[in-house]
């Protein structure tokens, strides 16, 4: 029992530490947004032939170094490439055009190549479409849990469920902030995953507690008899 308490305390301390570290990280550095959701610059180059993303990647690695780069094929003929990165200097643009010309035999000119500024997508705009479906789902789930496990005290079950669900998501975002995992297309799937497994774990725990309660009740009945 002592060991259990100790391990439970350890878990709580660990969770608190992660959350504090996460909050500090968010306050100091904010979240690390994926390139798709950042302020970026983009160039589009007409290569005139089908190309391999890996070859372009090699060129962009040479030109942009450690900068994050997103490479996309354009239109149905897939003979143009869209290169998006955090920022593109004139020198980088010139280098890129030269290397593309060398590789594909094109006659592109740096001065004709326009750099397009792309504004970032706000975090709240990413989350907005998910708020209502999640809110509806959570409310119905809470009502179900409250009814199903009324023997464990409805209010307690609901409060516990809200607490666990909140805690799990706060933990997830703290870990994301600490590990600098980019906020992007994988963030929402992560949120959903954590939500589902929290639900599964929570229901399993309630089921166990209910079974225990029923066992205790039957024991009490037997002793009364």
């Amino acid at each position, binding site marked *: 029992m002592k060991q259990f308490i100790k391990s439970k305390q350890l878990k709580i301390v660990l969770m608190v530490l992660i959350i504090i570290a996460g909050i500090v990280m968010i306050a100091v550095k904010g979240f690390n947004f994926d390139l*798709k959701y950042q302020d970026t610059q983009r160039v589009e180059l007409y290569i005139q032939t089908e190309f391999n*993303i890996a070859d372009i990647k090699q060129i962009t690695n040479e030109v942009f170094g450690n900068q994050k780069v*997103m*490479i*996309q*094929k*354009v*239109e*149905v003929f*897939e003979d143009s490439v*869209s290169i998006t990165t955090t920022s593109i200097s004139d020198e980088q643009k010139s280098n890129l055009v030269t290397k593309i010309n060398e590789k594909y035999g094109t006659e592109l000119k740096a001065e004709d190549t326009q750099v*397009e*500024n*792309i*504004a*970032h*997508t*706000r975090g709240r*705009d990413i989350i907005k*479409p*998910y708020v*209502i*479906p999640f809110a*509806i*789902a*959570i409310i*119905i*789930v809470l009502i*179900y*849990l409250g009814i*199903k496990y009324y023997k464990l005290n409805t209010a307690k079950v609901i409060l516990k469920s809200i607490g666990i669900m909140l805690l799990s998501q706060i933990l997830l975002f703290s870990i994301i902030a600490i590990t600098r995992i980019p906020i992007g*297309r*994988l963030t*929402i*799937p992560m949120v*959903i*995953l954590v*939500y*589902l497994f929290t*639900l*599964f774990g*929570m*229901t*399993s725990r309630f*089921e166990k507690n209910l079974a225990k309660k029923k066992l205790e009740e039957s024991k009490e009945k037997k002793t009364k008899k």
Partner: protein
Amino acid sequence: MKKIKIITIIVLVILITMVSFFGVYVHVQNRMENKVRDYDLDMDLQGARYVRLAVNKESKDVIKDADGNEVDTDEEMTDEQLAENGYTKESVPNNTEDSLTVENYEKSKEIIEERLKAQGVDEYEISVNSETGDILVQLPENDSTDNFVSNINTVGKFEIIDADTKEVLMDNGDIKLVNVMYGSSSSTSSGTTVYLNIEFNKQGKEKLANISKTYVESDNTTNTTADTNTATENTSNEASDETETTDNTDTTTNETNTTTESTETTKKEITMKIDDEEIMTTSFDEPIENGKLQLSIGSATTDADSLQDYITQATAMASVLDSGNLPIQYDIESNEYILSDITNTEIEYIALAVGIVLLIGFIVWVIRYKVNGFLSAIAFVGLISLYLLVIRYTNVSVSIQGIVGIIVTILLNYIFINKILSKIKHSEDSKKLENVKEAIKESYKEFFIRLIPICISIIAFCFASWTTISSFGMVMFWGVALIALYNYLITATMLKVKAEK
């Protein structure tokens, strides 16, 4: 017999797997065509239409009178004509300096978002550059994309003006809501008519009532009375008596007024304009007191395609008017389809990783549960194959969330089968049919009770209008349904047959 049963099930599983992973190829003309439907991918996986809207920097010529009022004229006036009329020509930017604010950029973004929602676009991304005001809209590529794009930068300025004086009688401020309605005419049986229903607010309702009373087609009768002297023979029969009848003919000269009626139809008409383009010029037959104006779009039709076209047009118009007018005029700078940066190779790597993890899981089963583990692994492969076919044939749009849904389903199925196998192994006699049945029954009960909250969430997600979340919901819905049904029909049967053996 029992052996045949198991072999039949295994053959069935292999068949489903072949169809799902390799397809069914049919010779069409000079090539082989896979008849198995392809996945319907969402914007993140397939690519999107990138529409870049730039703030319009052009100017327009405005003619003003001596008092500085704008003169609305369609005529091209020469400098001499302008001078004659005392008019001046000024070049005015389409977007004034005052209108180019961060608030207006944001408002424009919100209006575009509303328009997309109203037109049923269930996935999009919009970002606005707060310095330049440029807006980048990403839309899913499909048959309707061009239609959405064509309305995206419409300012949406609505006006009802006097056709003669050009006085603005009503504008966007008077609109409460705009929607699309359908009606079929039973008298003419000519089909269904699509209406654009414009509902006005309180102030607009009053204005419309007044306008509809004023702007009517009326017969103005002019009475012209002429005094003329004409000689008329007036014959009157007086005092008729049954016994004595006297004919009294009296000729008199009377002064008579002759009235000439000249009827002239005068029409006071209104012109409805959207974005300064005339939509119609008309008058009202009767006063409109309910504050609703219904405009028919196209003609009544029974043709489904034409009807759909009219509905699309009306919906686009409704979405533009209902969302209010853009405070800034935008031009479409670029409009191109850009493929996703997530390539097929990357998805294949994910599939390979899942496959390897599953293979390890199957090996664990075979080691721990022997023949039962082996049979369950085969059944599992069948479930995945069938699942992937179901996703393709139920029009589920697969997104990144959808892929996560597939992985979660596989994981849940592993947990479920593992539970069954574990219960069979730990039963008193794992070869006894009754024990196997009991283990399966218990596993179903325990597992699905724990799954109810997840099922509730999945169903709620299925009804979400946002593709990525509904994709996850649908994928998971079919996954959980298959876990319940497929395992009952295939996995449980195999385990029971093996126990009988």
